[in-house]
């Protein structure tokens, strides 16, 4: 080590034991002289795949993530089974018309209504949690191009939501049909696969919307409130609007989603294809807004 002695520094400080490379309190054996040529630390360029892997590490290393995801799964299954059991129990009370339009698929997938809330909360938190704690500065110091983080979070959470909700929907359907007893149907009946895969796809879309909103708003409260407003409040409140405006309601994300997975959607609903396209446009708009704000604003 070439000691930089030439500096005008109080001499008692210059001679301090700078050979110690380990902070005091660390186990002693790791101490190695600082100035010895260090073995190179192998590293590689930042790629989309590595950022995705990094986001997976972050995702799995927060306990709150696991709990929120689990609650989405339990809501999906629990409500589906409850609805199946309840429908079977009160079947005799249904009017003949209600019995005719009864959809065994829709009823056992009803849990999506609350599951989408849990997914929204988690999606927003995956982003705003980083802003609130300051982690985001470390994240963007490692990935200063920023946008790969947006894509990685969106893809990761969409994938996780799709797979977990697909499994939850399948379990909900299977158990729900058992509880519906003679009113239940099988997996090969019309609209069943579309319903199960569709509801998982819708919840994956909700996941992406929530992540994108997190980047736009950067606030947990704001993000969650906006997701609730968009998914739960708007479709209901929209019914109070003048008739001439109500033709817009099917284009809300929740209604467009229902058009995709519901066996008996409401009368003014879009078709499955139009619903998918509408949902896709919502995602595109949200992601573009997120990308735009993310690349323009200071962290």
């Amino acid at each position, binding site marked *: *080590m*070439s*000691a*930089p002695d*030439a*500096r*005008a*520094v*109080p001499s008692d*400080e210059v001679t*301090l*034991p*700078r050979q*110690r*490379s*380990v*902070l*005091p*309190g*660390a*186990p002693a054996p*790791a101490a190695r002289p*600082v*100035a010895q*040529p*260090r073995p*190179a*630390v*192998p*590293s*590689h*360029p*930042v790629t989309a795949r*590595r*950022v995705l892997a*990094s*986001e997976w*590490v*972050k995702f799995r*290393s*927060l*306990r*709150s993530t696991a709990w929120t995801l689990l609650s989405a799964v339990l809501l999906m299954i629990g409500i589906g089974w409850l609805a199946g059991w309840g429908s079977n129990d009160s079947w005799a009370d249904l009017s003949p018309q209600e019995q005719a339009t009864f959809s065994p698929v829709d009823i056992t997938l009803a849990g999506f209504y609350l599951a989408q809330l849990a997914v929204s909360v988690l999606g927003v938190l995956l982003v705003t*949690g*980083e802003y609130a*704690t*300051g*982690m*985001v*500065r*470390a*994240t*963007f*110091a*490692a*990935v*200063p*191009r920023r946008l790969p983080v947006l894509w990685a979070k969106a893809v990761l959470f969409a994938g996780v939501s799709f797979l977990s909700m697909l499994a939850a929907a399948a379990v909900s359907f299977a158990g729900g049909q058992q509880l519906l007893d003679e009113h239940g149907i099988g997996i090969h009946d019309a609209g069943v696969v579309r319903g199960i895969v569709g509801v998982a796809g819708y919840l994956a879309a909700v996941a992406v919307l929530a992540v994108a909103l997190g980047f736009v708003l950067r606030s947990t409260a704001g993000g969650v409130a906006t997701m609730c407003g968009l998914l739960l409040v708007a479709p209901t409140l929209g019914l109070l609007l003048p008739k001439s405006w109500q033709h817009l309601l099917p284009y809300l994300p929740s209604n467009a989603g229902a058009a995709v997975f519901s066996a008996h959607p409401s009368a003014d609903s879009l078709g499955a294809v139009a619903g998918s396209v509408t949902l896709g446009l919502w995602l595109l708009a949200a992601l573009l807004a997120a990308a735009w704000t993310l690349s323009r604003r*200071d*962290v």
Partner: protein
Amino acid sequence: MILAEHLTKTYGTKTAVDDLSFTVRPGQVTGFLGPNGAGKSTTMRMILGLDAPTSGVVTVAGRPYREHPEPLKVVGALLEARAIHTSRSAYNHLLALATTHGISAARVHQVIDQVGLTEVAGKRAGGFSLGMGQRLGIATALLADPDTLLLDEPVNGLDPEGIRWIRGLLRGFAAEGRTVLVSSHLMSEMALTAEHVLVLGRGRLLADLPMSELLAQAASDVVLVRTPHADELARALVGIGATVSRTEVDALEVTGPTAGRIGDLACDLRLSVHGLVAKHVSLEEAFMDMTRADVEFHARAGPVPGSDGSTAPASAGNAA
């Protein structure tokens, strides 16, 4: 090597960094010195691309930070505020960042050992003390074994042992020919760590000079002279190479000659002296003077006549 050219950052009407140009060279520890709010942290965030400059550019190793394929290999940074998710463990925090660069888990364990967090690596970072949080931040900076270290107030919250460790680490880094930029609002701390210093006040560069020069400036004590013949004595003192400023009609502030030398000179010239006081200038005082001059300069409408504090350091900057 960090190169900043005419960096300016404004937030609304407030100018945080004002036309800042400097070079941070490898092979030495460069101190970034200034009072709180001087723009040190903002400048560091701009170096990392976290904040975009309103105008001007800053490059690290020849390009903007964001254009490096392996950014963590180029700059390891510890930023002032904690940049850690409080619910995640120290190990997973580092692993997540390491994964973006394909850095192994073995290296993560290595830096955790190096900063002495082995025993708490699995605990959530939110429960860490200030000092432990600081160590984790330093581990983050060291992760990819970067060519440049950028540390914002690294000694905050560290115990004396930890502070000495940091100094050793920074010097070791510099001795290997790497670039080190470390900020502090404590002049005394800088004097022990840095070989070169950039002094910032109100977002402007006040001085860019070797630490030894700053110390020499500070060490040269000021002599206060009270005399009814201020004009004549001042002329004579300038004649022997002293720096003289007139503070009152009958008072001079003299830098250079000792009080004795001034007294002798006055005696030779048969000029009466009513007061002769040597004043010791501490490091902190020198630093305060430097930054205060800048504040005054801003507070008044136009340039202040004879406000040496704001012009002299600029010429020092050109020389450095």
